[in-house]
């Protein structure tokens, strides 16, 4: 209850260290290309938040923050990210015209308003929670929760159960059709081929990796003419732009791919270098990682 108890020097130091770090971590939400990075940033923010709670004489909340947010919610997020995989939506390129500027302007506006409010606010000196936390903080909070707000607690309980049920209902998938076995898959693929739809490949997709030189999943297979076969690379890698070009792998393979490779024994007539190589264009396009 004394002045010194509220906001000791140590607390300020802690804040000065954690606060900026939290902001930086939060910015990952805005700028990280990969959702997982953003999620990690957010986890950092959550943990930082738990520190701050503890510093703010709310140890119960600090623990709950770690357990609930970091331990449950964020794990759920990461889990879903895993489930959903990567997507074109992950890119930060804007699709709605002007949305980014609107967002920036509104963010600035929000900052201005909040700053206005906070800076002009006449905050009284903090009372501190020593008295309230006399029986330790969790007990105090418990008195509050199971005392004056017990009805709300019951309601929240109902809400949680409902949410759980809702989540189950939403994600539950009735099997409405027969299991798609290999035979059915083949038939579908043939039908699609006949209609001129789909990938127009009847055979199984070729496996990645070339001549056993490299068998990593991100290396496309090469066709007999040495061009990379895109569909041999898993979709996720392709979308992420992690597909490698032959040149990244090995100069030898690249020379085969580009047709400049010369057989030491018998040299077949090599295609002239200036003929446009379809693979070259594609490599530029898709090799965004470089």
């Amino acid at each position: 209850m004394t002045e010194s108890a509220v906001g000791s020097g140590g607390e300020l130091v802690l804040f000065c260290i954690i606060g900026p770090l939290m902001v930086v971590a939060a910015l990952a939400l805005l700028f990280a290309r990969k959702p997982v990075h953003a999620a990690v940033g957010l986890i950092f923010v959550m943990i930082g938040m738990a520190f701050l709670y503890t510093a703010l004489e709310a140890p119960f909340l600090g623990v709950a923050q770690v357990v609930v947010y970091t331990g449950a919610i964020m794990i759920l997020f990461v889990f879903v990210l895993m489930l959903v995989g990567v997507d074109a939506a992950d890119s930060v390129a804007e699709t709605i015209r002007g949305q980014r500027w609107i967002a920036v302007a509104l963010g600035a506006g929000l900052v201005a308003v909040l700053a206005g409010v906070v800076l002009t606010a006449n905050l009284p000196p903090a009372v501190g929670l020593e008295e309230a936390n006399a029986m330790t903080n969790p007990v105090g909070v418990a008195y509050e929760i199971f005392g004056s707000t017990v009805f709300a607690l019951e309601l929240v309980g109902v809400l949680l159960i409902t949410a759980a049920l809702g989540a189950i209902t939403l994600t539950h998938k009735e099997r409405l059709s027969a299991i798609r076995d290999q035979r059915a898959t083949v038939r579908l693929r043939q039908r699609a081929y006949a209609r001129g739809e789909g990938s127009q490949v009847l055979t199984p997709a070729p496996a990645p990796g070339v001549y056993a030189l490299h068998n990593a999943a991100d290396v496309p297979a090469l066709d007999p003419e040495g061009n990379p076969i895109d569909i041999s690379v898993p979709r996720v890698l392709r979308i992420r732009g992690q597909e490698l070009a032959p040149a990244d792998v090995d100069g030898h393979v690249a020379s085969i791919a580009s047709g400049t490779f010369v057989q030491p024994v018998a040299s077949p007539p090599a295609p002239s270098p200036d003929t446009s190589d379809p693979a070259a264009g594609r490599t530029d396009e898709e090799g965004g990682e470089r």
Partner: protein
Amino acid sequence: MSLMHYLVLSGILFTIGAVTVLVRRNAILAFMGVELMLNSCNLALVAFSRVHGTLTGQVMAFYVMVVAAAEVVVGLAIIVSIYRARRTVSVDEPSLLRN
């Protein structure tokens, strides 16, 4: 001393969360933005709890957490089911609110 700096931090985090919702197309990321906003509010609540010397703010923050948990569960379930149906989690792509 005042607890002004907590409020400033709370405001900054809130703004970042809000802008995230506006900017990111990935539904999961946008959702994370929402979480960030909730958290920043919680921070302010806890700070005010200390200012006033009562635990009401902490209890409030607790309830926010619980409700946020429920919300996340349902929200992520929705995202998953949309992904199943549409193979994407872009909030623009489905334009579900159109028509």
